[in-house]
């Protein structure tokens, strides 16, 4: 006996679903469709906060994520990095310090610096920006680093003595940074622990760093919302869709923008299958009763 349409709707072979997911991800990546990307206010406030850094301000840039979440965190990091260097080109007094409390995150930062033509070989390295690399020991590391930068990050990412970098020479503690630069913005791109709660405990309260923006994976966003509510952080770039919005804001469409089409398509595919399954289910139920 062959199956009725309703039964088929209720019992779609999972391979069909898998194949459609694969196609709907691949197709927009090859042939972008340019579906609309509405900007959430929470993303816009992050963008505005970065743009608002004045000439002579300081940006602390922490990459706290691993390779596993690079699909989401990678475009976020890339967006921020393009923006801060653009900003520095417009306002030459801005100084940037890169570091990270996850080892893999700092490797990714380094790759992106290279892609931007920055990093070790750049003559400006050490003068207008520095890359301190990985700081171990998670939350303890945050506390120790803030109290004594030159001991915890004795060498930068490239093995230079941190004291030889003109930018870092006089910045011995986080307090020095806060005292020397009136406007300190802290950017963290993160996917877990250690992450924002640790920064709030170790840095925000003791050193009074008020301007914090966060980019995180969609799974961690709900955990960030309370801090936005209390004003402890300015805003959140939420997962891949947040990264895509950010690319629209900085007018540099990239990986995330290409990915959003795929994101929209697959989400609607899942919804479509849920609807199909339920139609089939209710039709069958109606039949059984009659």
């Amino acid at each position, binding site marked *: 006996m062959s199956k009725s349409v309703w039964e088929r709707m209720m019992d*779609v072979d*999972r391979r069909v*679903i*898998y194949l459609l*997911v*694969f196609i709907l*991800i691949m197709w927009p990546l090859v042939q972008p469709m340019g*579906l*609309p*990307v*509405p900007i*959430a206010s929470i993303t816009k406030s992050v963008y505005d906060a970065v743009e608002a850094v004045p000439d002579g301000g300081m940006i602390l840039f922490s990459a706290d994520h691993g*390779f*596993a979440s*690079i*699909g989401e965190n990678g475009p976020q990091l890339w967006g921020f990095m393009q923006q801060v260097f653009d900003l520095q080109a417009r306002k030459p007094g801005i100084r940037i310090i890169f570091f990270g409390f996850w080892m893999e995150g700092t490797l990714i930062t380094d790759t992106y610096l290279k892609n931007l033509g920055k990093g070790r070989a750049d003559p400006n390295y050490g003068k207008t920006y520095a890359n301190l690399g990985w700081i171990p020991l998670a939350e303890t590391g945050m506390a120790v680093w803030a109290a004594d930068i030159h001991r915890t990050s004795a*060498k930068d990412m490239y*093995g230079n003595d941190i004291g030889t970098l003109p930018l870092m020479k006089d910045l011995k503690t986080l307090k020095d940074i806060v005292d020397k630069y009136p406007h300190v913005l802290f950017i963290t791109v993160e996917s877990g622990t250690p992450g924002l709660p640790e920064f709030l405990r170790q840095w925000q309260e003791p050193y009074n760093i008020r301007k914090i923006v966060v980019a995180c994976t*969609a799974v961690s*966003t*709900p955990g960030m*919302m309370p801090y936005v509510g209390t004003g402890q952080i300015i805003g959140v770039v939420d*997962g891949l*869709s947040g990264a*895509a*919005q950010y690319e629209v804001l900085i007018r540099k469409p990239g990986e995330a923008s290409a990915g*959003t089409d795929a*994101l*929209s398509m*697959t*989400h*609607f*595919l*899942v*919804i479509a*299958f*849920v609807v*199909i*399954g*339920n139609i089939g*289910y*209710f039709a069958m139920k109606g039949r059984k009763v009659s």
Partner: protein
Amino acid sequence: MAWYKRMEIPIAITTVFALYMIFEYFFNVPALKPVTSSLLVFVEIMGVFALGLGFISILMVHVPNIRKKRLYWPYSIPLLILMFFLTIIGLPTWAPTPPKEYGTSLWILGYLHPWFQFLYLNVIVPADATIFSLLAFFIASAAYRAFRARTKEAAALLLAGVLMLLKNAPLGTAIWMGFADIGTWLIGIPNMACMRGITIGIALGTIAIGIRTLIGRETGYFRGGG
């Protein structure tokens, strides 16, 4: 059985160390601070020593596999080869003149060996990321299968799930901005409250299981089957 082989001794050790950790946290005894940090490194070192157990266990499964030509035995070969290869070239070795990019440390780290790096970046990382990404397919089929309004409760689950999908898809919020608000509310209120309620229960469960372990009655620890 000799007295020193009795199960009570390890259990007593467990209890002593657990009580020490609790005491050290709540009572301000400065002399204990270095002891505790040493103890934590101790535990870390002992954990690392256990690694060889895994290695041996793998050998115990896969060497007989190959020798007795069990089903799927050929697959044990690449496993063993890569395992030995990475372990051996990854061992720290002494380099009199370390390459500059490895920093100035005299110990050139085995895992910075170019072959090791090559295998890590081109075998382990892509395989890891791709196995992780299988979840994209699985989550779609799981949603199709599970989001079905069989009961009122299942309908609530379905509704919340679909509304979240509409919030997260850029196209969803492009259709109606309200989806963003609904999604934010669902995550901010019911999801948070549910997680909080469950977390409170988990705290109580942890204490109960802790006490059972301390008095040596926990089935999951040493007392198995008994």
